[in-house]
């Protein structure tokens, strides 16, 4: 059961052991459910994370479709406003904490050891624990929907005092669930940092690491910095609800705005936690299919670090209408606008990488290219939102909903899809069915734009977010969005089909599954055996 530890003399190369050879037979894992409960193998835990995330993606998606079905036309037809509020809240919480974040952690588990030539994660038992906290946390969270008074109904941002004094009794369970999920994130982040800093193959410097590893290293530091702030703010809520304190209650001398400062000090870095690994994925895939090295590797690393640092200085742009003093308003407007600079550097780098390449359009590349275009559109609306005077009109409208869905769905989610198609040959030993994957891609692109593009107009025309019913002038936009949402939602079943088919069979993939790929993971066989790099590989810096 003991995980394979790195050899004591990592620089000594054994001639007889080839990287990627099978584990000795006496390490045979237990069978059945126990194998998955007790596994400390980074590949198995990675798969657990990814499967969990996919299940949660569908649960969160069903909640979204309940919302879109109700908003298909004016009037209340399907659900009451109370349940509608629970759906918007749960959709946000599940997608952020249970779908997108675990998906990236799953990819990190699978790919970081393979990309840096390490035999496993640095802390394998902790790795097992980090994963198994998640099903506990989210079973608890989902169970609140069946409690008296219903589940959380105050939005995924849970502003006090709506989430304290005026909240349903189940809020205490919501707080516990979020605490557990937060511990899982922090432990996962510690593990990733320890792995990247200590277990790189001999000869691999920090500036040789694939960008996916770099962006995850920076993301992990963000997680460690801000998850405790979230833990703090929900503990203060817990005290207000159950122990008579008044942190956020004006009647007791507290401050409801303090809640928002604390929440967004966590919340803004949190949104970068959900996008930086996506930058890494796209920065790995685009050079592969352009058959040309990334244009500016160092500037990509510095841009990622700048975005991470700036993310701590922009939180109050979520609070432009709470009545900040003018000086604060100006500071946060300027700092937010600054983020456009390193983000621009990234986009220019991707495009310059394409320039004079030799480009082919396999499904991972298609999702990555869609990411570049649609994430940039989300970036543009982000820049508009940064302009504080204009934000007085945009704030809390569907324009904001359009903005953050553009950066999270064709942003983060498309990058995760791209990563899955890119690495499925390594995981399963088979290429995914390209024809079905292309169908999945085009239906998703059409669906996602049909869903979220009209939301810009609905918001500008005056529709606030989080309302179960709306005035008649917003009806056309909402009908289009709802049609798009159902198209996008059902298209994702194709993804499940492609994955299942790919696990069961398909065209055999060689070790180097893609012509232009040259990171270390492509030196081990496909599918990657349970244990890889028991002897560290000989890392050769590519001569550029």
């Amino acid at each position, binding site marked *: 059961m003991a995980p394979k530890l790195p050899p004591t003399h990592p620089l000594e190369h054994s001639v007889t052991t080839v990287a990627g050879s099978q584990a000795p037979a006496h390490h045979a894992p237990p069978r059945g459910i126990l194998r998955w409960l007790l596994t400390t193998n980074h590949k198995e835990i990675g798969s657990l994370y990814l499967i969990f995330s996919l299940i949660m993606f569908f649960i969160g998606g069903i909640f979204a479709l309940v919302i879109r079905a109700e908003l298909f036309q004016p009037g209340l037809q399907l659900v009451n406003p*109370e349940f509608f509020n629970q759906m918007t809240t749960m959709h946000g919480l599940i997608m952020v904490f249970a779908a997108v974040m675990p998906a990236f952690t799953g990819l990190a588990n699978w790919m970081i050891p393979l990309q840096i030539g390490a035999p496993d994660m640095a802390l394998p038992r902790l790795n097992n624990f980090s994963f198994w906290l998640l099903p506990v946390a989210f079973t608890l969270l989902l169970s609140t929907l069946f409690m008296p008074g219903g589940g959380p109904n105050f939005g995924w941002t849970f502003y006090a005092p709506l989430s304290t004094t005026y909240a349903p009794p189940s809020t205490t369970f919501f707080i516990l669930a979020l605490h557990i999920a937060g511990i899982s994130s922090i432990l996962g982040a510690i593990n990733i940092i320890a792995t990247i800093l200590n277990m790189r193959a001999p000869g691999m410097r920090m500036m040789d690491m694939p960008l996916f590893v770099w962006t995850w290293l920076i993301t992990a530091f963000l997680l460690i910095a801000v998850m405790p702030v979230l833990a703090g703010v929900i503990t203060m809520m817990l005290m207000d609800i159950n122990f008579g304190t008044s942190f956020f209650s004006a009647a007791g001398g507290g401050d409801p705005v303090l809640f928002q400062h604390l929440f967004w000090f966590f919340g803004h870095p949190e949104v970068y936690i959900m996008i930086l690994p996506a930058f890494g994925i796209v920065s790995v895939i685009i050079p592969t299919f352009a058959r040309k090295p990334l244009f500016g590797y160092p500037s990509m690393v510095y841009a990622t670090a700048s975005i991470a640092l700036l993310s701590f200085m922009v939180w109050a742009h979520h609070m432009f209408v709470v009545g900040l003093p003018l000086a604060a308003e100006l500071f946060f407007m300027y700092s937010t606008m600054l983020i456009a*600079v390193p983000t621009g550097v990234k986009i*220019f780098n991707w495009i310059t990488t394409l*320039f*004079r390449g*030799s*480009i082919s359009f396999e499904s991972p590349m298609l999702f990555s290219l869609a990411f570049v275009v649609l994430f940039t559109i989300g970036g543009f609306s982000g820049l508009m939102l940064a302009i504080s005077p204009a934000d007085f*009109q945009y704030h809390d409208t569907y324009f904001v909903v359009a903005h953050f869905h553009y950066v999270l769905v064709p942003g983060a989610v498309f990058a995760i899809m791209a990563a899955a198609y890119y690495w499925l040959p390594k995981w399963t030993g088979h290429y995914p069915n390209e024809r079905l994957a292309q169908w999945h891609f085009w239906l998703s692109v059409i669906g996602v734009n049909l869903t979220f593009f009209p939301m810009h107009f609905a918001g500008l025309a005056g529709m606030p977010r989080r309302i179960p019913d709306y005035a008649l*002038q917003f009806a056309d936009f909402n009908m289009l969005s709802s049609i798009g949402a159902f198209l996008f939602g059902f298209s994702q079943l194709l993804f499940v089909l492609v994955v299942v088919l790919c696990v069961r069979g398909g065209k055999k993939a060689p070790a180097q599954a893609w012509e232009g790929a040259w990171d270390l993971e492509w030196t081990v066989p496909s599918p990657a055996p349970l244990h890889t790099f028991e002897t560290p590989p000989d890392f050769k810096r590519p001569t550029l």
Partner: protein
Amino acid sequence: MRSLWRWIVSSNVFLSTTPVHANGWNMPRGVTDVSGEIYGLHMTIFWICVVIGAVVFGAMFYSLFRYRHSKGAKAANFHEHTTVEIFWTTIPLLILVGIAVPATATLTKMYDTSEADLDVMIIGQQWRWRYEYLGEEVAFTSNMSTPRAQISGEEGFGEHYLQEVDEPLVLPINRKIRFLMTSDDVIHSWWVPELAVKQDTIPGFINENWVNINEPGVYRGQCAELCGIDHGFMPIVVHAMEEAEFDEWMLERKEAMEQEALGVDREWEMQELMARGETVFESICASCHQSEGQGAPPAFPALAGNERLIEDLEWHAQTVIDGVSGTAMPSFRNTLNPVELASVVTYTRNAWGNDTGDSVQPGDIAKRIAE
């Protein structure tokens, strides 16, 4: 579900939803100088984004088309170019500075709430707005007037579905009006797009904003911050009128308020109290306790057949006046006048089979409030 199908099959799905406003796609230019400036900023940054987008996506799609592997493109191997990298860092920075300058000017103007001609207090309450004209002794609450039957689909939609109220906020044009904004319960946000005013109303805080309207008209908006179950049913209507017309309206309102105050001193008949009480209940209480007094437990207790309420008149009256701390039941001490309080207490004690026969006089309530 049945109403859904009825709606889908009815052929006027698209016809009936023609935008009410001519400009239903974009941010309105609005009717104040500030709203015009914000609209200008919005369009400027929009076109800047369009131009950048055209250049960036143009370069991208050119590369995708020109350097296709399938057409035998051979990859170059270049990377890193300091001049190019400095160029694409500085140019965006300069564009940003260009945007920041006018944005700063507009924001500074928006924050200047000094020298107002009229102060209006705006108080958010679950789920209505209260307006108090400071120094004028005129105050009222503004509730959504769209019938619930329209929302549930039993009746057709009215022209201003969900954006109509019983008492609009009346304001004069060409005067600087300062808004002082707060809340009695959770955070709300007062937003009228045509006035470009969106400001959170926060319990325990008073936020300031201002407006100087250029054109008379009716301007509609709604609560923009999630504030609970009826967040979507908290519209705002502003009726902006010529100054003389406004002054006349103000005089009439003052007289009406005085008449109402006189009512405290006389005996009220049971019937009068019940009629008045029903109106107050429907506009203030029914959103939580429901029209038939059945409530929505556990958050909103039932009033019909509520034993404590039926047995304890003292407690009942006090609860309406002071609210219940730690729950959604607010204090109505300052929101309702003694006539309204007495009539709504009387109504709830006698409606829906709560036949206690008690009537409460406005004079008694006034005494109780004074204590």
